[in-house]
């Protein structure tokens, strides 16, 4: 019973990402999209990395914002992948 977390807000601006981290479980996965891409620059991303949760980043949304993705730590995904991810998890929680 795993959860997919869609993070759409910058942690520099709102508390949504911090609240997501409170809820996230070991077998969950996370997607950074929209302004959630800015979290690649935020210290809180290290909490998620340390928890060994897969961190997906919607590539187009990061590229539009001139945010580079370290492929050793993060998975670049397309909108097709996002559709698959939402289908392959038991539930989706959107943090916006």
């Amino acid at each position: 019973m795993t959860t997919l977390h869609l993070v759409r807000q910058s942690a520099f601006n709102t508390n949504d990402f911090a609240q997501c981290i409170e809820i996230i479980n070991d077998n969950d996965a996370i997607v950074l999209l929209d302004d959630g891409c800015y979290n690649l620059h935020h210290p809180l991303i290290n909490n998620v990395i340390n928890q060994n949760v897969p961190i997906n980043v919607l590539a187009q949304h990061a590229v539009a914002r001139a945010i580079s993705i370290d492929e050793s730590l993060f998975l670049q995904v397309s909108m097709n992948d996002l559709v698959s991810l939402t289908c392959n998890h038991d539930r989706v929680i959107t943090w916006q």
Partner: protein
Amino acid sequence: MINIANKSLAILNSKAPYGTTAGKDALDIALIFGSFEQDVSLFFQGDGVWQLINSQDGEIISVRDYLKTFSAFEFYDIENIYVNKTSLTERNLTNNFHIKEVQVLSQSEFSKKLTSHQTVLRF
């Protein structure tokens, strides 16, 4: 896939009561699901916990005080109301709520309970 006749819904409240309409909009969903005899639970995290705090009075600032409707949860068979203990502690708040049935959960219990529901909506 088999359609499940009554999928459990968790509503995660993250906003303070009066500054936005999020709390009221979430309540409207909860009451409709309740009146259709659906399995619905309410969760309060972050500034959402302010919605449960006692002695508030929205009428002072001309809000129709939807928090008063919380007392009707029993009538709608909404019995599962959970609050994140960490969010209370961060705000220096005690367990002084305006309704009775609130269960204060540790972060891990809160997360476990929330993700035991089939659908989660966050407001």
